[in-house]
């Protein structure tokens, strides 16, 4: 009963959970460099395979939440993620034809592109120093974490979301 009620909200919940996890202050140096963008992985997955449960408004709102949590200018993540789902919608049918492992590097590229969009947008307001290591690290970390996260999402998708 509860699962049935929550089922439509799984994409939103997983994106928010991803956000909460990726913002954890883990006492590891590797975490500060290779911190994966878990919310983007969730967003990518749901937008690709269940776009009906992951509409533009949800993406926009989760983007705003990311801005608020990251103390960033409001609309930064919302803007970049709307741009990303335009890309995903355009190439979605092709991407769905491939196994997820093959399109995994694309996730790293998406993270990199999103970070570059942030840099460009932030540069409109203030001078932004560009550190390539965190940018590349986040892309790499996202690629590395993607198989595990996507496996969990597939499980959730098939066991809890599909029946409802």
């Amino acid at each position, binding site marked *: 009963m509860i699962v049935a009620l929550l089922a439509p909200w799984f994409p939103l919940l997983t994106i*928010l*959970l991803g*956000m*909460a*996890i990726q*913002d*954890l*202050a*883990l*006492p590891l140096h590797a975490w500060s460099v290779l911190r994966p963008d878990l919310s983007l992985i969730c967003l990518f997955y749901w937008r690709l395979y269940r776009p009906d449960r992951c*509409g*533009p*408004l949800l*993406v*926009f709102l989760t*983007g*705003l*939440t990311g801005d*608020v*949590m990251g*103390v960033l*200018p*409001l*609309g*930064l993540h*919302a*803007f970049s993620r*709307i*741009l990303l*789902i*335009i890309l995903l*919608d355009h190439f979605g049918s092709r991407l769905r034809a491939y196994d997820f492992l093959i399109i995994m590097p694309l996730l790293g590229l998406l993270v990199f592109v999103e970070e570059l969009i942030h840099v460009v*947008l932030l540069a409109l307001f203030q001078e932004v120093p560009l550190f390539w290591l965190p940018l590349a690290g986040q892309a790499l970390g996202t690629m590395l974490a993607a198989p595990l996260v996507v496996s969990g999402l597939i499980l959730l998708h098939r066991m809890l979301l599909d029946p409802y």
Partner: protein
Amino acid sequence: MAAFIAFVKQYRNGIVIFLLLMAAVVLLFSVRLQADGLRGLRASVIELMGPVQNVLMLPAQVIARMQGRIVDLARLDTENRWMRKELLRLQGQEIQLEEMRQENKRLRELLYMEQEPGHVTQVARIVGDSSPSFSHAFLLNAGTLRGVREEASAISPHGLVGRVVQVTSHNSMVLALTDLNSRVPAMAQRSRIRGIVSGSNDEVLQLRYVPKDADVQVDDVILTSGIDGIFPKGLLIGKVMLVDSDEPGLFQRILIKPAVNFHRLEEVRLLLPVAAPPAPPPAPPAAAPATPPGRNRTP
């Protein structure tokens, strides 16, 4: 109007995305980071996400604590190993220190012993002990190079030990009082009765050749008599522990407990007689008085 509605229906998704994109741009350019409304929104989001993050941090904290504990354990293990080694080293040092302290005490006792007139002393360490065999003798680490000569007396702070019977350049052999072949002229301190102290390869000595009517009692102190010219007079030998006058023969049977514990000896002091100073040259004959001229010189 109908065309507009049809257009919206056809491109609904695209229009929504476009509007949201514009909304994001408007937000980006209109809302200041520190705006009051945004501050409230941020507080609300943090209120919502904070507990979730707290729960999510629990495993991470547990793992971090475990990791810290493992690091601590590894460090403790290293420290423990180091301390065990250090303890072993210090135990060895402590034994060495105790050994040196005792040696220092013994040497101090030897140093403060009364000087024997007519003798110089030389301290020597016992490096060999033949006591378990049929003779009771000690090997010392001092020989002729350190001035040791045969017949030198060996004493300890407690009394007479024996005499040197053999000397090499670096070592010398001391025949202990308890040896079967040892003979030392002695006397009782109280009654001045004389006799010969002899060993028997046992822990007790015998005072021989003491007539049956001589006054010797238990606990009498026995000293060297010095009549042999080897042992200086008055060195402590021991105390009488048994007097038996019922022994057949002319003499009493007297047993003496040595003052020295031969089992615990580690250093001895050797009394080396000072060589007698050379005799002064004979005095030149007194000058003959000048003979007056014309006197006959013949006796």
